[in-house]
C-alpha cells in the first residue's frame, strides 16, 4: 500500500508540472493565479498522501496551511492587482491595472 501511495504522490507531482506550463504561457494574470489555485488543491492532496505514505502526521498541518494560504494569495491578487473593489467605482482602474 505504501508503494501505491508513493506512486499516487509521484503522479500528483507530475500533474503539478502542467500547472507550471500554464504559469509560463498564461495570457492574463488571472490565468497565472489559477495555477496557484491548482497548487492549493493538488498540493493539499499530495501532502495528505505523503503524510500517510511516510508516516509523518505533521504533513497534515502543512496541507492545512497550504489550503489557507492559497485562498489568501488569490484574495490578495483580486484586491491588489485587479482591484475589483475600486473597479466598481472607477472602471478605468481595471483597464490600467489588469494587464500587468
Amino acid at each position, binding site marked *: 500500500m505504501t508503494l501505491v501511495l508513493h506512486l*499516487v504522490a509521484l503522479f500528483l507531482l507530475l*500533474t503539478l508540472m502542467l500547472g507550471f506550463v500554464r504559469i509560463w504561457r498564461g495570457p492574463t494574470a488571472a490565468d497565472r493565479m489559477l495555477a496557484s489555485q491548482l497548487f492549493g488543491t493538488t498540493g493539499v492532496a499530495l501532502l495528505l498522501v505523503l503524510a500517510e505514505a511516510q508516516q509523518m502526521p505533521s504533513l497534515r498541518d502543512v496541507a492545512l496551511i497550504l489550503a489557507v494560504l492559497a485562498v489568501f494569495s488569490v484574495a490578495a491578487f483580486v484586491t491588489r492587482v485587479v482591484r475589483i473593489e475600486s473597479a466598481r467605482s472607477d472602471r478605468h482602474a481595471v483597464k490600467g491595472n489588469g494587464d500587468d
Partner: protein
Amino acid sequence: MIEWLLPVVQVLLLVSGCIFFALGTLGLFRFDDTLCRIHALTKIDNLGLGLITLALLMMTPSLASSLKTLLIWWVALAASATSAHLVARAVRMHERPMQQRERCDD
C-alpha cells in the same frame, strides 16, 4: 472478506482520484478561455481531492487524524470555491467593465 476488500476499494478510490486530478489539470492546460479553466479546475480537481481523502480516511490510525483530514478537506473545498468566485469576478470585470458594473451594483 473485509481484509482484502478494503485495500481494493482504497486503490480504486486513489486511482480514480488521480484520474480526476489529471483531467482537471488537462482542462487547465487545454481550455482556451479563463472561465472554462476555472470551471475545469474547481470542479474536477475537488472531486479528485474528495476521492483521495475518502481513500486516506480508511487508513488513518486514529479518530483524531481522521477528523483532521476531514477538516483539511473542508477547508480546501471552501478555499477553492472562494478563490474560483474571486478570479471569475476579476476576469469578468476586466473583460466587460460596464456590464459588470451594472450587474454588481445590485
